[in-house]
């Protein structure tokens, strides 16, 4: 479904991704794990077009995403829930949701999708008039995920959804990810929370210094000696 092939990405003169390749298949949950600065967020930003690869290709369902302007990518069903939520803080929860459904297809179904998102997150319905910036951390994450769902994603990419949340909320967020996946949405997840995400994913890739060094199913990686030592502290 999504095939990232040997991309090199730079910030100015600094190379962050070195020929990194991976793929996501229909209906999967795929996780990219790695330490701070390994290039996980950079990878997502490159897929969603905020950054351009200097070399390599990104293909989603036969479409070259790396050749599209960033604002056109969401229209193909590739939706990025960014790190630190990045909500429109002075807009209400509902306006944030509406902002997720600008593409023509999503726009047509705006009302139904909104009802579905409110069903998924009853708390968001209660707070729909409230400015997004005044929500608690967990609520903001729900709002950001809801905004992403409003775009009717086929591939939903999460960047550190558990960041800054209390452990109990982290559990909630991962349950939501699983639930969204059950609804038929393919998921690409970036996380530092290695143990929990490896347990819930279908397949995972380990990024180190901008390259993919390991890949396998969640189970395989949980048992891998290098992963155990470097990420699980065993």
């Amino acid at each position, binding site marked *: 479904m999504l095939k990232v092939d040997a991309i090199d990405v730079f910030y100015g003169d600094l190379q962050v991704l070195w020929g990194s390749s991976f793929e996501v298949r229909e209906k999967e949950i795929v996780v990219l794990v790695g330490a701070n600065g390994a290039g996980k967020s950079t990878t997502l930003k490159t897929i969603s077009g*905020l950054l351009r690869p200097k070399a390599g290709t990104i293909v989603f369902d036969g479409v070259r995403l790396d050749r599209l302007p960033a604002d056109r990518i969401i229209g193909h069903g590739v*939706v990025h829930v*960014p790190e630190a939520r*990045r909500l*429109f*803080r002075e*807009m209400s929860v509902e306006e944030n949701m509406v*902002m*997720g459904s600008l593409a023509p297809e999503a726009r047509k179904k705006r009302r139904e999708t909104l009802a579905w998102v409110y069903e998924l997150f009853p708390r968001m319905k209660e707070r729909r008039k409230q400015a997004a910036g005044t929500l608690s951390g967990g609520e903001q994450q729900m709002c950001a995920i809801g905004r992403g769902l409003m775009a009717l994603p086929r591939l939903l990419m999460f960047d550190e959804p558990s960041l800054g949340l209390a452990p109990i909320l982290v559990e909630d967020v991962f349950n939501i990810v699983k639930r969204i996946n059950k609804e038929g949405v393919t998921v690409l997840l970036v996380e530092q929370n290695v143990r929990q995400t490896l347990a819930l994913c279908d397949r995972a890739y380990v990024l180190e210094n901008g390259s993919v060094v390991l890949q396998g199913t969640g189970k395989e990686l949980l048992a891998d000696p290098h992963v155990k030592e470097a990420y699980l502290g065993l």
Partner: protein
Amino acid sequence: MDVFLQTLVAGILKGGLYALIGIGMTLIMGVMGIINLAHGQLMMVAMYITYVLHLAGVDPYISLFVAMPALFLLGCLIQRFLLNPLLKVDTILPENQVLMTVGIGMVLTEIIRFIFKSDYKSVSTGYSNATFFLGNISFSIALGISFIIAIAFTVAMFFFLIKTDIGRSIRATAQDKDAAVLMGVNTGRITIITFGLGSGLVAAAGCLLAPVYYVFPDIGGPFTARAFIITILGGLGSTVGAIFGGVTLGLAESFGATYISMDYENIIGMTIFVLVLLFLPGGFKRLTKI
């Protein structure tokens, strides 16, 4: 007491127009993060359009419908061909776009001076000096009509910003540009529309001011300064704040002219500006939280 009320009314009427000028500036400030130092000059161009149409016998309130689209277009073109290309240039000066607006303002002023000379023109109509009385207080009919039209445009603008996808995209771009891109907003196009809207709004203010003011090429500068003061008063990038800022400046000028001296009109505005920067650096936005 009558003098006081009279001054108050005059200030509020003027403030309505200033709000229109300020909202345009604020929108541009919010989305592009730059102060548009050609704002008053764009208004001046609209005033000359009104003047030319007036010579042809068109009422200033009708020429609004010519000047606004014309300035909207001019604003879009400026953003598209003069300001946006600067974003792609790497320089040590991040204020490039601001400097460009200064240049645009000068060019507009000199083009108009070249065509019309520096003479003061007036767009006097039957109602320019007409007044009506409510008790002992006289209202300028021209300013009264202008005020009502200004309010109508302000309300329409808010409706647009809150209820339409483009309006929401403008606000979203101002709040978080990258997130807006991720949501599918073509931010390049949004900056163009925003500059067009800002120019269109200040054009409306120009048409409304024309019947009660003189028209001359250098009128742009003082109004750019006013727009700047209003934007700072309101708190940068806050549209509601810009309305408060506009009315405050209108009132301050009006009271200053009545109780101190007509000559000090501009000094009053600048004094308030300095006081706000010193004691309320966030502008009225800090007080209203809007």
